[in-house]
Structures are given as structure tokens and as C-alpha cells.
């Protein structure tokens, strides 16, 4: 049935719409003002405000803790140097920007990102699935987890072939934990537990152990020094390093992912690794 609305109904509709509008407005304001809230540029334009302000300022503000060589440390002049520093600068250059390195304590890196003190964190940061609600993580750019390492020429090319062999680990370390786990799961291995990672590699090279379980940062550093030890198989306990950006920075996130993929393809990542860890061993 069709009928004209009375002026009373119109008044009611108008008042309701006004109240709803006010509520939405207050909500939007709260979303903008809240810590880590919406960027007004993104809100109005639908674009990534972090990426927009990077473009307008010509700078990518990158947070890192310069206390973890070779990824990030300070040189004699007090300037930040390292794998992550170079990676950030190369990426920024790809985008026609300059990387501004901001030194921040490791435990405060993500807080600084949330507080908009930096645009991204590039600091040997392990992936944390619990934080994906608040941060956008890049694909991994370095696997720092536990690898099975063997001397060049070893017949062991997989964890399944460890039975009846000796495996060196740093006592109490994550490698030790993985070794104990393999034993619980039925692997017939004998763990050679030594006090330091250096002694793990020494044991391997001296023939006191047939294989080693060691983190990939230590392993790559040793390889870079010319130690003829190879990693075989995938990481047995993964610890991937990623770049973190604000959750709302979708354009920046896409750009980081695309650039990392491009760097993998065109050899930039291999070049960075060789620069900061030394050349990989010949297979």
C-alpha cells in the first residue's frame, strides 16, 4: 500500500539519521586518534597513508637495534652498518627514497612501529603469528632456524639418514632441543653436547661428530670464514626473519614483498648475504 509519510515520521527519520551520523563520526574520530589507529589519508583516499607520507617526505623510516652483527651493528664512527641496513637502503633506493635508520632497543621495536616513530622494522625480526593482527609482515628474507650441517662430501643429505650417527649440538641450545626431540621420536643418534657453537663446528671438522644441529646465522658466519660445512634439508626448527610494517600499510607491504621477490631473482639477496657473511661454500 502506498501512502505519503507524515511530517512526524519524517522528523523521526531525520532525528534517527542525525544520531546515527553522530555515532559514526565519533567512532571514526576514535579510530583515527587511537594509538596505531587509522591514518586520515587512508581513511579519506582509500590509499596507504604510510606509503603516501614516505613518498611525500622522500624517506623510509626504518627501525633497528644495532646490536646484532652481521645484521646490524655500529661501525667505528658510530654509524649503523650490516645486512639489514644495506637491505633497507637498497629497497628504499628501488622506490626512489632514502632510508632513515632509527636505532631502537630490540624489545621496543614493534612499540615504535605502533607509535608511528618508524614506518617499518628491519632488524632480524623473527616472524610472530600473534602479532599479525597489528602488523603486516613481509615474506621471510632470511631463515635463521636450526639446520642440519654436515662436512662437505658427507653421505648424510637428510635428517632421515642420521641413524647410527653422532650429532654435535651446543648443550642446552635450540639445536640440543631439536636433537633431543629427534631422539624421542625414535632417531638412533648420539648427541655430542659441547659448551659453545664454535665447539660444535670444531667437533664436526675434527670428526668427533658426523653432523651438527646449529642455527643458520652461526653456520653462515662459519661458512663465510671458509669452514667447509654444508646445510642439508630444510630448517628443522624454523626462525624466519621478516620486515614488519603497520597493519594498515597495505601498499608498503606489497612494495616490500615485490621488492624482496625481485631481489631474490636478480641476486641482490645473495649479494647481501655474501657481503655480510662471506661466500657460501661450494656444493
Amino acid at each position: 500500500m502506498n501512502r505519503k509519510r507524515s511530517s512526524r515520521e519524517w522528523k523521526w527519520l531525520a532525528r534517527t539519521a542525525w544520531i546515527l551520523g553522530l555515532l559514526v563520526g565519533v567512532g571514526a574520530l576514535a579510530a583515527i586518534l587511537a594509538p596505531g589507529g587509522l591514518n586520515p589519508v587512508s581513511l579519506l583516499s582509500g590509499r596507504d597513508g604510510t606509503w603516501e607520507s614516505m613518498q611525500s617526505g622522500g624517506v623510509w623510516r626504518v627501525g633497528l637495534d644495532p646490536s646484532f652483527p652481521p645484521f646490524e651493528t655500529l661501525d667505528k664512527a658510530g654509524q649503523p652498518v650490516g645486512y639489514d641496513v644495506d637491505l633497507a637502503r637498497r629497497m628504499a633506493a628501488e622506490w626512489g627514497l632514502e632510508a632513515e635508520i632509527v636505532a631502537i632497543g630490540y624489545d621496543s621495536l614493534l612499540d615504535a612501529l605502533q607509535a608511528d616513530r618508524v614506518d617499518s622494522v628491519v632488524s632480524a625480526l623473527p616472524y610472530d603469528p600473534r602479532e599479525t593482527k597489528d602488523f603486516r609482515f613481509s615474506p621471510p628474507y632470511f631463515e635463521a632456524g636450526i639446520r642440519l650441517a654436515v662436512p662437505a662430501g658427507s653421505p648424510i643429505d637428510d635428517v632421515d639418514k642420521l641413524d647410527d650417527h653422532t650429532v654435535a649440538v651446543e648443550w642446552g641450545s635450540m639445536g640440543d632441543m631439536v636433537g633431543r626431540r629427534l631422539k624421542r621420536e625414535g632417531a638412533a643418534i648420539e648427541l655430542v653436547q659441547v659448551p659453545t657453537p664454535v665447539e660444535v663446528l670444531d667437533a664436526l671438522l675434527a670428526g668427533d661428530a658426523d653432523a651438527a644441529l646449529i642455527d643458520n646465522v652461526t653456520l653462515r658466519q662459519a661458512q663465510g670464514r671458509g669452514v667447509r660445512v654444508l646445510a642439508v634439508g630444510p630448517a628443522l626448527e624454523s626462525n624466519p626473519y621478516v620486515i614488519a610494517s603497520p597493519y594498515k600499510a597495505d601498499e608498503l607491504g606489497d612494495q616490500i614483498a615485490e621488492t624482496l621477490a625481485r631481489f631474490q631473482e636478480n641476486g641482490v639477496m645473495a649479494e647481501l648475504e655474501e657481503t655480510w657473511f662471506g661466500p657460501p661454500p661450494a656444493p
Partner: protein
Amino acid sequence: MSERSWKIVSIVSLALILIGLLIWRPWQGGRPVSLGPQQRVETINPKMGVHTRLTDEVEPAKIKRTLEMVREMGAPWIVEYFPWAYIQPRPDARNWVHADDVVNHANRQGLTVVARLGFVPEWARPKGTTPLYLDEEHFEDFGRYAAEFVTRYAGKVDYVIIGNEPNLALEWGYQPVDPAQYVRLLQVVYPMIKEANPDVQVLAGALAPTLAPPGSEWGVNDLDYLQAMYDAGAADYFDILAIHAYGGVFSPDEPAATDEINFRRAELLRQIMVENGDSHKQAMITEAGWNDHPRWTRAVRPGQRIEYTIRAYEIAQEEWPWLDAIAMWVFRFPWDQKSYQDYFTFVDTDFEPKPIYEEVQRYARGEAQ
């Protein structure tokens, strides 16, 4: 619809809501888990303990598994936190479900519980303050909570700690750190606890080891604070001194020194007890330990952490007759902290034992190291 139809719809709806609630049982905080048979801890060192962190572990099955693993490791003591704000969120409300779970499972596993009481509910503090802020106006409220706690768990929990690290501004709710005020808290709460359950032993102190200089806004040196507690008349208002004894980067055999934070700093606190006529009282280390984070400046290598931890248990047993127990921080977190804190734990969040767990277990079983 007719009136009869409306009635049918209403009754069916109510029945569905009731069935839903019975299945969900939101007031129970999770499905109850059987306590299982009474267990006892097998160990060569009856002073061994750990600080569990079950406060935010919501699944009863995981509470039980945590405590089973503590027993299996060979530690008869646990220190656990029972936040006042969780149990009494409003003056007229009580929720003992989680606390009951922790206490009952711990008892069934043969563990002795040391209950740390604190964490002030919103109704007992001014707006804008932290949950660690407790002013004198609410000392009696806290005392009533503590008295209810020791009454409810009479025969199940015989030790309670009053507060935590009151010599730090952070832990004192950012009020000026004041030993005399902490002693006034003890003077209010101690008699209330004793009246409710005379068998309970009240622990005080739990001071943070710190070299904070005089006048620091962050805290007061723990040795100075303890002496100031005695000066303010604390001696009659606690039974056991709670001690925090972190080792930092030092071996537990590093000698005690007033200008150093190491494990044997506990001996300096003990000396202050003796000098103030409290040699007849015992002490208990309610937090201690070493950290093996690869990037934290106060960490040691994982193997050192194992060695130092076991040696600390040995020192407690062999050299310190004045110490009842030593609880290492921290057995397990319900979820990863993603910081250096994860490197204090003995088992992962998914209950995978770290090497330190297995090595401490071997020690507790008397197996050669």
C-alpha cells in the same frame, strides 16, 4: 500469530538459551579436568622449586599438565600468583574457579604452593592508577582478601607472599617507594591473616635486587630497603623473608658484594636478618634464575644456564640451612612473550621440554651430570 503461538515460541527460545548455556557453561571458565590420583614428588633435593605462571592459563587441562611436569622434573615447591583483581573484581563478587583449579591440581601433584597475593582491583584504587597501586585507605580491603584466601585454602596453601618487589616504583604503583608504608601494610594484613588461619606462614619482602642510587625515582637498593623495613618495625609482621636472587651473567659461586647483583646477594639479605635479631626465621627464594637469550645483555650461554641453575639448587640444599626453598623464574608461559622472558622458561608453551628441564630432572633423580 495467536497468543498461544507466541507462548510456544517464547518457551522454545528460552529452552534453547538454557541448553546453550549448559553446553557453554561460561561461569566455569573451561571444562573441568579430573584431578587424578594423589602424587608425590621424587627428588634428591627437597628445596627445589619453580615459579609457575598460570595466572593467564585458562585451560584446566594445561594447568594440570604444567603442574604434572613440575612434579616430573622433581621440584616439590611452586610459587604462583593469585591476583586480587581476578578473584574479587567487585567488592561483592568472588571468582575462585581458576584459583581452585591451580591449588587443587598442585596439591594433587604433591606440590607445596606459595601464593603471591597482589594486583589491586579497580574498585580499590583511584582512577588512572595501575593495578599495583595500593594506598593505605585500602590496606584493610587487601587484608580481607588475604584472610579470605587463607581461610578458603586452609590446609592447602600454607604460605602467602604479601606484595612483590615493593622497592621498585613500578611495582609500588608509581607511588614514592616507602619501606615504612610497606611495613604499615604488613601491620594491617599480617594480623588479619593470622586470625583467619594461624597455620599460614606470611612471607614479606620479595625485593627486587637493584643497585639504584639514593634518591632514584625508579627504586631503592634492596639491602637499604630491608634495613629500613626493620627500622620501621617489620620484624613482628612476617614469618619468612622472600628473596629474589637473579644471577645475571655471574656464576652462582661468585661471592656476594654490595655493589653487585648476583645470586649470592641472598646472603647479604640474610645477614641483615641476623643483624636485626631475626636469625630464628627462615628465608625463601621466590624468584631466581639465569637467562639464555641470544641477544639480551644480561644473558648467559644455554649450557651455563643449566650449570648455574643446578648449582644454585645445590647451594640452597648444601650451604643455606636458613633457606626453606628456591623457586626459579619461570617454568612456562601460556604463550610466547616474544622477548628475552621466553629464555627464562623450562618448557615451551606447547609443553616441549627444553634441555634445561631434562638436565634439572636428571639432577633431581640423582643421575650423574
